[in-house]
């Protein structure tokens, strides 16, 4: 036994998984107590999200969407984690985490507006507890420490959850945030979606740490690694973390091992420059949808007709949302000026007048 701390900790991390790639249960003890209806709902959401992602990618290619970061491959970690939350729990997403905030209540057409850079994409409805997606990597982690502390101070039984990629864990804000939440014992859940690449940089070049879950050790908080292609394992880990947070047990760090099937974003990234075909095919066999579909089929609660129905619904919903987004009034510079401050100072009023006059011409 070595006295070196790093070696001891790497040994301590094992990966939580519930379903094997063929859909059989490998860990009955960890199986979450979900009804058949809930299990079917999880599947519906994953299928819906896959279709939406495919549509978003093609809309993006046609220039009908703005900034878009594909999500296929990560559905289990995104949808499983959100499904474990209460509506009052707060989500602080990163740029890729649109499915979580949509399933938490943000209307789909607003997600498309956000993608286009329209201000209305970020006007979150009053009863939806999410922030607009974060672009600055790491900022969401320290802000989550604040939201979680707010829940604690208000004696609310809620948790704040946030997401970061493997690359993001190298940021100073990552450490500051998990350390703050630990020091204040706040009900925060930090989910690392380790999809193995930060744009093109592989995890091996990102850090010498063997796992990202072990980074929790330095902050003195519980850390766990889960199979991020296994929706039930992700659900279980987040549900347990939420339970811990609600009962005063403080924050949790969860590393979900996952993979993105598509490019980093639709803004010109080409994964063939940094990933091999073999690797991609290997991960495709771990597809979270295939695995969960087999599990449900074995249970006799999912059929091809179910799948077709959801696919049709998703296509319909996306077309509808795009129509809705197209119908929203254009964003204007005066509108932008109005949201700089609660009450615009005189110099901004003056600048607004100049734009109003220009637009009146």
């Amino acid at each position: 036994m070595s006295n070196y701390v790093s070696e001891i900790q790497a040994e301590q991390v094992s990966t939580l998984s519930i379903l094997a790639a063929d859909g059989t249960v490998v860990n009955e003890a960890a199986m979450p107590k979900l009804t058949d209806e809930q299990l079917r709902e999880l599947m519906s959401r994953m299928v819906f999200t896959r279709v939406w992602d495919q549509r978003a990618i093609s809309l993006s290619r046609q220039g009908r969407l703005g900034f878009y970061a594909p999500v296929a491959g990560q559905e289990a970690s995104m949808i499983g984690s959100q499904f474990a939350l209460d509506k009052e729990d707060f989500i602080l997403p990163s740029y890729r985490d649109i499915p979580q905030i949509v399933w938490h209540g943000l209307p789909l057409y607003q997600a498309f507006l956000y993608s286009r850079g329209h201000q209305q994409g970020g006007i979150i409805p009053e009863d939806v507890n999410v922030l607009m997606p974060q672009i600055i990597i790491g900022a969401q982690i320290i802000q989550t420490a604040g939201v979680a502390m707010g829940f604690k101070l208000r004696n609310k039984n809620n948790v704040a959850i946030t997401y970061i990629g493997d690359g993001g864990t190298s940021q100073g804000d990552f450490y500051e945030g998990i350390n703050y939440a630990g020091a204040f014992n706040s009900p925060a859940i930090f989910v690392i979606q380790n999809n193995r690449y930060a744009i093109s940089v592989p995890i091996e070049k990102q850090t010498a740490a063997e796992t990202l879950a072990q980074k929790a050790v330095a902050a003195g908080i519980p850390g766990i690694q889960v199979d991020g292609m296994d929706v039930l394992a992700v659900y279980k880990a987040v549900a347990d973390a939420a339970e811990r947070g609600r009962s005063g047990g403080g924050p949790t760090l969860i590393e979900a091992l996952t993979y993105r099937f598509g490019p980093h974003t639709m803004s010109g990234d080409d994964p063939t420059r940094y990933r091999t075909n073999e690797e991609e095919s290997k991960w495709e066999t771990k597809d979270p949808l295939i695995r969960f579909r087999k599990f449900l089929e074995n249970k006799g609660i999912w059929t091809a007709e179910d799948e077709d129905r959801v696919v049709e619904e998703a296509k319909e919903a996306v077309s509808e949302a795009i129509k809705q987004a197209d119908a929203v009034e254009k964003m204007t510079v005066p509108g932008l000026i109005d949201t700089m401050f609660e009450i615009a100072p005189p110099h901004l009023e003056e600048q607004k007048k100049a734009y109003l006059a220009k637009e009146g011409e």
Partner: protein
Amino acid sequence: MAQMTMIQAITDAMRLELERDPNVLVFGEDVGKNGGVFRATEGLQQQFGEERVFDTPLAESGIGGLAIGLGLQGYRSVAEIQFFGFVFEMFDSVAAQAARMRYRSGGRYNSPITFRAPFGGGIKGPELHADSLEGLVAQTPGLKVVIPSNPYDAKGLLISAIRDNDPVVFLEHMKLYRSFRGEVPEGEYTIPLGKANVVREGTDVTIITYGAMVHTSLTAAEEIEKEQGVKVEVIDLRTISPIDIETILASVEKTNRAIVVQEAQKSAGIAAEVVAQINEKAILHLEAPVLRVTAPDTVYPFALVEDDWLPDPKRVKAAIQEVLEF
């Protein structure tokens, strides 16, 4: 009325707001038990408890993110940056996050945060403690930047800053903390943000300034009046973003000559902005170019040349002379 130093007035403002509004929280490094390295939060933790006034781990970015997250839960943070030179560690939170929250969410969320920080030269501090970095934050849309020059203003402005629903950077000049006392009313009162103050009336030249340079400018004004009978008007901006151009214009239209005095380095700063605005709005009232009296464009120097480096009354008087003789 009580006689208070500026730091006492600042503590008083926080105490009153903590009492008035349960959503107000005060935190930062060493602000709790220790009462802050300058004692600005002295006694507040004792009075309000560790839930409302607390020490954070030593990580400035964490302080900024915490304030933003708490703001999303309806809390009004008074977050202390121990010295403003450490704002770089927190700059994303201040300039890229808090300042943009209202815009990004189309008005749905805000950041009702007051970022308090000591700054300012003449105290022979270590590196990156005294630097005048107000220009960096003043250039950021969505932030208000306040710099009081006396105890009365400090209290009234800080109360306004805490009540403001947008983020305010509140900079406290270290040299002014305890250098003199002034009359400060006991109870609560506010001074509106964005309003300048004519601290000395005059007819011949206008000095536009803020912070510790208000005092340097007043000294220069008094000396030059005694020596030559020149009557200098001195405007204390109090808020450097947004700038109260109305007050400046009214004065320049009267005196027809102006100089801007700032402790910060010369290029691209508040003084340059004031000159530009006068140029845009009052050029026909001017009898001479508007001059700047500032520090040179170097990094803030080690203590040995600090006094020489900072603008002093002599340099202010020379500038007055120059615009009079133009």
